[in-house]
């Protein structure tokens, strides 16, 4: 491990948090296998990225939940061949937004086409599934889906609070 010269460390101490954030790379990427436990790595990546950019905890929580839902949907429903696949995640921050782009090569699936769940049903009639997409749509400021060739691309955008 190489330590920065003392003068550099001192200079960076006087920089504002804003300047430090501006120096952090504005995007990061990760490719993980389509296994449910890999969602932890996605979640850790978002934690690190959010900390580097000084993002508000509530904004990060909304994105954590949305990513959890999106990733679980892909792992549980996108593939029927039993073969290993790779899910690609890109996080980006800029212009007051946090964005996550999730790409998979599974079956075409447009989450925006899924009907909203009936939230008025009583306890014993409530389906135990089908809420994930509702959470994604509600927690994000914008959700876009595109089928590109043999890939699904889901773009989740969260407008950052001040």
């Amino acid at each position, binding site marked *: 491990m190489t330590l920065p010269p003392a003068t550099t460390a001192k200079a960076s101490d006087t920089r504002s948090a804003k300047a430090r954030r501006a120096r952090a790379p504005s995007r990061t990427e990760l490719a993980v296998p389509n296994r*449910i436990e890999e969602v932890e790595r996605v*979640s850790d990546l978002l934690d690190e990225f959010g900390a580097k950019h000084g993002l508000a905890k509530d904004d990060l929580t909304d994105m*954590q939940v949305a990513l959890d839902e999106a990733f679980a949907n892909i792992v549980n429903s996108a593939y029927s061949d039993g073969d290993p696949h790779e899910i690609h995640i890109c996080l980006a921050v800029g212009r007051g937004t946090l964005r996550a782009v999730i790409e998979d090569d599974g079956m075409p699936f447009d989450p925006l086409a899924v009907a909203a769940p009936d939230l008025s049903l009583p306890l014993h009639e409530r389906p*135990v*599934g089908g*809420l994930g997409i509702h*959470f994604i749509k509600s927690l994000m400021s914008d959700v876009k889906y595109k089928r590109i060739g043999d890939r699904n691309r889901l773009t989740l955008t969260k407008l950052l609070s001040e």
Partner: protein
Amino acid sequence: MARLDLHEESVDGVAILGVRGRVDTTTAPQFGARLTEIFQDGSRGLVLDLHELEYISSAGFRELLLAARRADKVARRLILCSIPGKVQQIFDIGGFVDLFSIAASRDEALNAAR
């Protein structure tokens, strides 16, 4: 730090499960298994103390729904308490507020569960 930490205690025969961290796709099975275990013991009611819950995704709500149904079936009280603001928002979005018994504080929950 573990993603999910479950801490159990008993007060006057009421089981209290403290839920700290994240109940998501990977930790929900652990959460559900513990709820099932607790319902198998002899406690009268169960209080879920959520004040250290960071967030819960639909995988976690699935376990909560199943637990609430189980509680109903065996006539046991299941009370959720001390839900943080951010988590409350997720409960609202999911339409869960009327589905569960929710108390503002742990004391209030304990009184209701006895």
